């Protein structure tokens, strides 16, 4: 398949891995931000090709994992309402709130529907004028433009039965939070290629400079990731700390201008709590005043209740790259995809799910 096979080529992967071994003279710890990259690394066994001196730690870039449990609970409350249609991306279905997940609500009769695009939810709202349709707007800068588009369309059609339960988060503030933490050990970052496809990478330039870390915009196929690691290690070895683009076939420095303009039109930057990480100022997107009537929290007046997380779950440390999933005592024992303690065990971008699926030899 074009644009895929050439980036999954065994010979090419070996060549880049050898080049990394050649230039790496000392140990380096790199973090891939995005959970999609974490899964590719484990699924293809990319880390096994790297020299022992290069450690990849896994970042917080799993939108499902960082959605606060309070918001999952709000989703469960809304979805349980028999009059509503609750639309969500597929992988939110299994994420545990403090009392079950959306899959259970669906089984109990809630009208929970998996959609592929927020625009599908707008279409549902048009088709069912007598019912309230809610879309669960979760994700980084990648999914936010589609949600913005849905809100703009809903407004244009004058829909009064469409709202979004929003938990959009932003990557650069999360990187800064990690870097300013006293227990940080990450020396270089692989930035998420799809986030940069939308946003470009100018936002990362001051971060690289201020904290003295190389940041390499990286894609998702094995050769993309190896190339990202190579450029990152090369910078570290040469004492440079710059933003480089290793995903040129998709990413331009300025990003996707129309998408960015759409984001600016609909959203404003707000503080956001990240599950497992805590509150981060200016790290999320919320609807601007002009679009406030499409905010599900406002429309349905949902109260936030304080919720206790499982005390045994170390997902916070996993999401910050401090611990690896298999270092958790509950991993694969009391925490499995069937009975998750935390979201990273069930998300298709969660690090715990990746370790369980590709590494855990339970047989």
């Amino acid at each position, binding site marked *: 398949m074009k644009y895929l096979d050439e980036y*999954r*080529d065994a010979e090419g992967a070996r060549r880049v891995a050898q080049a990394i071994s050649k230039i790496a003279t000392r140990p380096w710890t790199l973090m891939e931000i995005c959970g999609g990259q974490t899964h590719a690394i484990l699924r293809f*066994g990319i880390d096994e*090709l790297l020299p022992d001196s290069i450690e990849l730690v896994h970042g917080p870039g799993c939108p499902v994992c960082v959605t606060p449990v309070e918001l999952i609970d709000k989703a469960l409350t809304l979805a349980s309402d028999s009059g509503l249609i609750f639309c969500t*991306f*597929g*992988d939110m279905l299994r994420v545990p709130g403090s009392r079950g997940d959306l899959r259970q609500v669906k089984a109990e009769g809630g009208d929970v529907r998996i959609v592929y695009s927020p625009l599908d939810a707008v279409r549902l709202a048009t088709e069912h004028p007598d019912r309230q349709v809610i879309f669960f707007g*979760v994700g980084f800068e990648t999914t936010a433009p589609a949600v913005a588009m849905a809100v703009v369309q809903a407004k244009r059609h004058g829909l009064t039965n469409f709202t979004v339960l929003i938990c959009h988060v932003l990557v650069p503030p999360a990187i800064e939070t990690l870097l300013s933490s006293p227990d940080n050990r990450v020396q270089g970052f692989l930035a998420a290629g799809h986030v940069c496809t939308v946003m470009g990478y100018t936002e990362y330039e001051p971060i690289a400079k201020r904290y003295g870390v190389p940041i390499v915009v990286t894609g998702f196929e094995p050769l993309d990731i190896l190339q990202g690691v190579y450029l990152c290690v090369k910078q570290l070895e040469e004492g440079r700390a710059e933003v480089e683009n290793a995903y040129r076939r998709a990413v331009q420095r300025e990003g996707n201008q129309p998408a960015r303009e759409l984001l600016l039109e609909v959203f404003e930057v707000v503080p956001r709590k990240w599950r497992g990480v805590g509150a981060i100022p200016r790290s999320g997107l919320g609807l601007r005043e002009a679009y406030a009537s499409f905010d599900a929290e406002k429309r349905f007046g949902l109260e936030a209740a304080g919720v206790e997380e499982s005390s045994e779950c170390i997902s916070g440390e996993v999401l910050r790259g401090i611990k690896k999933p298999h270092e958790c005592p509950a991993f694969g024992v009391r925490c499995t*995809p069937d009975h998750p303690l935390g979201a990273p065990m069930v998300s298709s971008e969660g690090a715990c799910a990746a370790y369980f699926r*590709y590494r855990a030899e339970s047989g």
Partner: protein
Amino acid sequence: MAHGGGGSLMHQLIDGMFRHAFDNPLLNAGHDGAVFDVDPARVALTTDSYVVRPLFFPGGDIGTLAVNGTVNDLAMCGARPQYLTLGLILEEGLKMETLWRVVQSIQDAAEAAGVRIVTGDTKVVDRGKGDGIYINTSGVGVLAHDGEIGPSRIRPDDAILLSGDVGRHGIAIMAVREGLEFESEIESDCAPVAGPVMNLLEAGIEIHSLRDLTRGGLAAALVEHAHSARFPLLFEEAAVPVREDVQSACEMLGLDPLYVANEGRFIAFVPESQADKALEILRAHPVSGGAVRIGAVQDGDRAVVRMQSRIGAVRIVDLLSGEQLPRIC
């Protein structure tokens, strides 16, 4: 539709539609059950229920599924499928022409698979209590060989053969269900696989185990074998054929084709010494023309499936917790 109450309408349906379509002496006897001789004495018996939405999809419908699914389960026992029962649960309000289309598909599929529908039952449920049509079929097949076929027979060094490309049925269904459009229409691989299995047995291939790759796909079939036989299995990702359109759909939706359902594909475990001959036989039959060798049973006591990835690293393949869900990004 008031055809479920046992009155004259029911008789019209049975005589006018079913008996006409499935015409054969055992069914025409009109008795409460079918009576037949089985020779030789070893038989295989299986049953399966079919609920699928939509009822019609590219490459088949619920009728073809209901015949091929049961026929294939018999074939996986090494049996030649002979007789099927047909249980229909119809939702009130179902259009007669829809039922007729399905009945015709059942007859066409039965003919293609060389089986006869010998007894059946029809019930009608209230509107809103069913998805149009539910079907149950049970099947009887005869075994013409003495060998046992099943996971307990597999041995280290057995070759693992796969009868063709994977992922088409699941993606075809999903494309229709979710209104996804691709450049070309992806058709289900739904087909009876008893033919190539019988050819293997008749050629004297000592088949150790067979499994059709329905729900859970290739991955589930391999993992179930590793768990039952308690041997590690190793296969190569690059050896598993996936059509380009199916691969693109999977990439877009974040699905792994290894776990996507098939309705006309199976794996066979055969002794390494017979693997080439078995492949040649499989490739000579149209439903398994794309057969390939994907891996082998390993020596050891870890009941795991390992896969060599495209870039050469080895990782675990395990069952998923539930069905695959499309991803966020």
